[in-house]
């Protein structure tokens, strides 16, 4: 099942909940007027795109309307969608892979966004869909039972997990993982880290250390630093991206929990202001609930009317 089907399935579940959300954008038989622009701006804001980025988008829309000499309301939404998709980067970029040796992917984010779950799903995806051999490293040594949780996902995906005990040095676990993956010839190593709020300096320093230590083993590592964002999150996601990027050099985003009613529109602002591409989305808690990011489908869902 493709992403859009899954989204449709999700949307169908929401029934009335979503219907009143954006249905108001009836563009057929309408003139392009101030009211219509306003409604589009509202739809963006309600999807968590944020005031600043929404206003910027509507401004671009006005320009396009003038440049293209548009008159009919129904011509407006497709242009708007184009503009948003452009902002998201219309090309879906695949994961960066190491030319040789293991590709190391460091997974970071604030508490409870879905890092561990995403790792489980991603392991499954890389193994089943791309035929890669995958190993996991349990560097969340802080949260109670986090290691057990990752172990369960390792079992589900059928991939080994490198771990020490709770309270162990996360950098040491990450190092063990990189070393084991290299020595045993694994294609990909996924490193799970503890959730941390981006404004906690000490915890962010710990991430820096993890990076430093794994680079002793593989100098180009991590090849990707994947920031997991929760679609339910509002404008704070921009700040999260900014700080995780500063400290850990985030290269890609996974947007989770798109199976709920949240639109995750904040990634539009994130792409606009922090220029980090979204590569995956999470649409559920099952192992196959991970999809490569598709900007067009995402934008369709952003403006979805519940009747999809």
């Amino acid at each position: 099942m493709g992403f859009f089907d899954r989204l449709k399935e999700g949307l169908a579940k929401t029934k009335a909940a979503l219907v009143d959300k954006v249905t108001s954008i009836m563009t057929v038989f309408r003139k392009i007027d101030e009211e219509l622009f306003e409604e589009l701006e509202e739809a963006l804001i309600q999807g968590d795109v944020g005031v600043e980025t929404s206003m910027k988008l509507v401004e671009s829309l006005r320009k396009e309307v003038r440049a293209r000499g548009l008159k009919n309301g129904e011509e407006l939404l497709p242009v708007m969608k184009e503009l948003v998709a452009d902002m998201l980067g219309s090309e879906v970029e695949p994961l960066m892979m190491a030319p040789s040796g293991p590709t190391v992917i460091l997974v970071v984010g604030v508490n409870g966004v879905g890092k561990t779950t995403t790792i489980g799903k991603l392991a499954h995806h890389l193994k089943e869909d791309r035929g890669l051999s995958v190993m996991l490293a349990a560097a969340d040594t802080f949260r109670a039972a986090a290691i057990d949780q990752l172990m369960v996902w390792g079992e589900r995906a059928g991939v080994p997990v490198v771990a020490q005990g709770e309270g162990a040095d996360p950098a040491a676990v990450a190092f063990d993982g990189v070393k084991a993956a290299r020595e045993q010839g694994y294609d990909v190593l996924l490193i799970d880290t503890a959730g941390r709020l981006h404004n906690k300096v000490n915890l962010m320093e710990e991430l820096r250390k993890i990076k430093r230590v794994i680079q002793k083993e593989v100098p180009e590592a991590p090849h990707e630093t994947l920031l997991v964002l929760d679609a339910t999150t509002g404008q704070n996601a921009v700040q999260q991206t900014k700080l995780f990027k500063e400290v850990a050099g985030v290269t890609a985003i996974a947007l989770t929990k798109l199976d709920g009613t949240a639109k995750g529109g904040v990634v539009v602002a994130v792409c606009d202001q922090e220029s980090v591409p979204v590569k995956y989305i999470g649409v559920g808690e099952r192992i196959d609930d991970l999809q490569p990011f598709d900007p067009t489908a995402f934008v369709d869902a952003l403006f979805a009317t519940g009747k999809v």
Partner: protein
Amino acid sequence: MAMFESLSEKLTNAFARLRGKGKLTESDVSDAMREIRMALLEADVNFKVVKEFVAKVKERAIGQEVMETLNPGQMVVKIVYEELTALMGGENAKLEIAERPPTIIMLCGLQGAGKTTHAAKLALKLKKEGKKPLMVAADIYRPAAIKQLEVMGQKVDVPVFSMGDKVSPVEIVRGGFTYAAENHRDVILVDTAGRLHIDEELMGELQQIKSVLNPHEILLVVDAMTGQDAVTVAEHFNEKLGITGVILTKLDGDTRGGAALSVRQVTGQPIKFVGVGEKVEALEPFHPDRMAQRILNMGDVLTLIEKAQEQIDQKQAEEMARKMMKAEFDFEDFLEQMRAMKRMGPLQDLLKMIPGLGAQMKDINIDEKEMAHIEAMILSMTPKERRHPDIINVRRRERIAKGAGRPIAEVHRLMKQFEQSKKMIKQLGVMDKMMKKKGKGKGFPKLPGLGGGFPGPFGKR
């Protein structure tokens, strides 16, 4: 970044060009409302909630209050702040404790909101209050969720009841209830699995748990970083379960936390606690006034209110000054002042607002507890005693001490301090009169009982 320019700055600018107009028209106010709308949206307050809120503020703003003041921008900020605080409900709502134990508390919410951690934090808090809590592990879905609760249970030294992940949550809570009865646990905290509000099946499961347990509290755990969707989530959980309160988590982050307003608005239920860290002790009561400041991103909001306050209080202060000069000042006035201060928020911040005191009061350390004691003593006086402190003899003092639950020595001290400050106030009053005669100085807006002379709860650090 321009985006983070504070609301007060924006409002002040918006109103700057209106200065000297004397009267605000509806369209003048609309400009200000636009700024307020943006500020709230940037803080993640839900779009519809913002609409309603702004309409309300606008109504108040075009009214009398604003036009009378010299600086409408400051006045509008004050109104926004007050309305926000009011909207988020009364000062920290408490947990409902059953008259006949066990008290049953159920935690629910989306995935990753922080339910398990907060079950443990609540358990610890209740334990410290002398309760004997039991945590029940009803999350059979997320891998290692039960183990997580068990580890947390050990950390806070509170037992955890579980039946593994092969038994239905409804069975588990039944078992937990029996276990609590047999083991004399007087609070049951149920940790449920995170779920989407639109997941009919899992929401049905929560309804079943509710009908089995009949909980005293159904707390919705909400991540403070939640965006526009907070409204939908809260609406659904409330509709299906009838929540009794909210725990707002992860407030130790740097989110503005507009979700607090959204959730409160759509459920009508109070935010009872906030989570402020990963440690099990990191649980605090919710303070609407602090949350309002945070949402508005206004470090300087208090300064502005101070200025607005200066204007409002002028009349009141003059009346007070008149009384003082006649030495009419009594405990009623004193109480009134104290209460006014309490309503306005944390004392430390408030002191800076006291007209005429401002900066010089900065290093003064206030013991809020002692303030509460003073209030209790004044409240134990009869109205007659409050108006005529002279009649308070030793026998009356004894009664007051008993009524307030304070040692008699404290009542003696209060009386003495009151007499001293009254004397001092009188002197000041005379001075003020002289100053006025010379045509210097402003009115007499110093807050009685707080100026230099009144020792009481204010000591230097």
